[in-house]
């Protein structure tokens, strides 16, 4: 039986899920995309067993039905090669899928639909509604602090938890930490203190796929999965088991040295010093002085950069070293005009925030100078 679809209507959902489709052929079916076509919609599903993406193209107006799995990248490349608006005819013949468009014909090897590993519905459907735009901001402003390939596997992800009427995200790689909060709307089954860890891969996919739209979206939490329903796209991520470290204890509550500083000026000074900071270690020296904050970077070739951010500082002078990339990551993630640095001594963590009212806080551990 033939199924006739418009190129765009099928290419769009396939491209949306291609990000999780494996390039390596570890398990052949994981390089396939599950395609479901009926008269109402066209859907494509891709998975890497950690993140599952389902993209749905509603009102696609396809003639005929189809239910199969095809090699994702090849299928997308074939569809892409046609001109816009091209009609494509698909016909399943045993384990082969015949594709015809104009004078071109392709035959692809399919795999049984039943072999495709689907997550299914989350088991205990507790859920909360949040603004899509705010969720995107939350991820954007915290995810860079996640660890990468750490043996402490629970750091290779983003901790999501609920505190009061807020959803909190915490990321840390053991050297720095980012914490942000957004308000939640209506919710069901969410308990105070409830928390999960979303693996790095899932977080990066979310960061890529969530848009700036001002609409409410639903996040559902199961025992093993988190699912975000964007309507045309459903993102399901496995959760990481393991105990997230007690991050509250490393956030300084008070500090001997407090400095209010314009974010943009500090950022520029750090970017300049970073040019001559050691390429591997990335250390810069921050000198708190009465004239302001002096930023010094030097490398193994004894080249040196120095910049002074004039700012009123009444405390005692002292010096502390930081990985300049960690500082710049934080300053790039913030959008406030003025920020506050709070630190006790060169051996304990430094807090960067915007005072009590801010929703985002960052902690960086210094380097020994």
């Amino acid at each position, binding site marked *: 039986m033939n199924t006739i679809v418009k190129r765009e209507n099928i290419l769009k959902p396939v491209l949306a899920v291609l990000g999780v489709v494996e390039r390596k052929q570890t398990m052949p079916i994981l390089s396939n995309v599950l395609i479901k076509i009926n008269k109402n919609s066209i859907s494509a599903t891709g998975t890497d067993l950690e993140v599952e993406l389902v993209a749905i193209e509603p009102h696609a107006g396809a003639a005929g039905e189809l239910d199969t799995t095809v090699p994702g990248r090849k299928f997308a490349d074939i569809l892409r090669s046609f001109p816009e608006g091209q009609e494509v005819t698909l016909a399943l013949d045993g384990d082969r899928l015949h594709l015809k468009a104009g004078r071109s014909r392709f035959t692809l090897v399919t795999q049984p639909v039943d072999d495709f590993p689907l997550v299914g519905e989350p088991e205990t459907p507790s859920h909360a509604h949040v603004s899509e735009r705010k969720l995107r901001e939350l991820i954007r402003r915290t995810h860079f602090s996640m660890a990468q390939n750490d043996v402490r596997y629970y750091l290779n992800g983003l901790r999501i938890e609920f505190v009061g009427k807020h959803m909190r995200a915490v990321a840390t790689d*053991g*050297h720095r930490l980012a914490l942000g909060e957004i308000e939640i709307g209506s919710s069901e089954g969410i308990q105070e203190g409830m928390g999960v860890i979303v693996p790095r891969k899932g977080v990066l996919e979310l960061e890529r796929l969530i848009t700036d739209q001002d609409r409410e979206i639903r996040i559902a939490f199961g025992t093993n999965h988190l699912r975000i329903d964007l309507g045309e796209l459903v993102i399901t991520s496995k959760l990481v088991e393991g105990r997230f*470290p007690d991050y509250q204890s*490393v956030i300084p509550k008070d500090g001997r040295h407090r400095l209010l500083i314009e974010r943009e000026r500090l950022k520029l000074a750090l970017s300049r010093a970073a040019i001559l900071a050691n390429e591997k270690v990335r250390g810069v020296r921050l000198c708190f002085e009465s004239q302001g904050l002096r930023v010094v970077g030097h490398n193994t070739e004894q080249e040196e950069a120095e910049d002074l951010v004039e700012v009123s500082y009444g405390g005692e002078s002292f010096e502390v070293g930081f*990985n300049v990339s960690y500082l710049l990551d934080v300053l790039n993630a913030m959008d406030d005009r003025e920020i506050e640095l709070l630190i006790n001594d060169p*051996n304990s963590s430094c807090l960067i925030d915007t005072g009590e009212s801010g929703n985002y806080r960052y902690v960086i*551990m210094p*380097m*020994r100078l």
Partner: protein
Amino acid sequence: MPPPPSAPWPRAIALVDMNAFFASIEQRDFPELRGQPVAVTNGLTGTCIITSSYEARRCGIRTGMRLPEARRLCPVLIQRPARPTRYAAVSRAIMAALLEITPDLEVFSVDEAFLDLTHCQKAFGSPVGMVQRAREVVFRVSGLPCSVGLSGDKTTAKYAAKLVKPNGLTVIPPWEARERLCAVPLTDLCGIKSGIGDYLAARGIHTCGDMAHLPVGELSRRFGNLGRRIWYMAQGLDPDPVRTEIALPRSLGHGKILPPATRDREVLETYFLHMAEKLAARLRRHGLEAQTFSIGLRSDEGLIAYPLRTTRPTNDSREIFALCQTYLKEHWAGWGAHQVQVTALDPRPASSQGELFGGADPRRRRLHAVMDRINERYGEFTLAPARLLSRSDMPNVISPAWQPSGHRQTV
């Protein structure tokens, strides 16, 4: 164009090459060997000739030749067992003396060193004068002859040093290097072996002079930066700098022979602790740390080792020993072992980044600093965990990869 004689060379690189190093030391230490054909072998049981004296070489004896074959060529050949610690001491004295000429010294092997004399010209004048002094200095501290090549780059200097042996001095001023190398077969240059040689020969490039006809892209496309370097090398313009720093090791490890078929867990643990302490102290001495360690025991079936990881990169013996205990618990099934091995697989400069969660205890760091200073002054394991009182008293053994300084200077 040659510059005026008084002008400094744009670059001045010398290679000091000790002549028949091990054999010359034997002849100097034992006067009865002087003027005799001498071959040095690994102990008296070794049959492979490590090096031979010039008298032996005149009979056709070469490094790598087997003793029976050498005896056929030269029946009066005298075999001497190698004395590595002695050679290492002489090498160390020579290298230290050469540092008087220039601090820009690269120890190329136990008997070869590159000297970058470019920057010393201001202080010491002409490079030719400096290499003459270098030969005097070498002879003063070792009583041994050496050959020296002087030019504007490493490859030409090395080529020049080979021209007159023993006890020679060859100067190829940088502005003459290209012409002097012109007719030299490429494979005579240091670092160009048959692989690259065949690739070039297939393109009709046999001598250094031919190289000018080949676009540099032909070499860089196939061999990358090395290819680009070879293209310059052939024209007497080798850009490779004299490397004063010893490159980071790919791995760093210690092993020790156990009593045959050791099965006693206590004994194994003590040996592992011994190696962990040694390795951790060595990592700290060179400002290194590592996160992946290969822990293993050698049985009759060979070395059974597993790479195990610590949470964070470390140079603390306690954490390395904990991996050894994990190994014994999870990978050792009670079979008899005759060697322990502990190797850091990814040594890197120790990080100065602080940890938010459970970082290294600052008291441990201070303890290590004190312990390392005491042990450096009063000898290895003067201060050590009490358990090591029952450690093996087998002497340390010198490794073939030994170097006079840096992380390989260890026994």
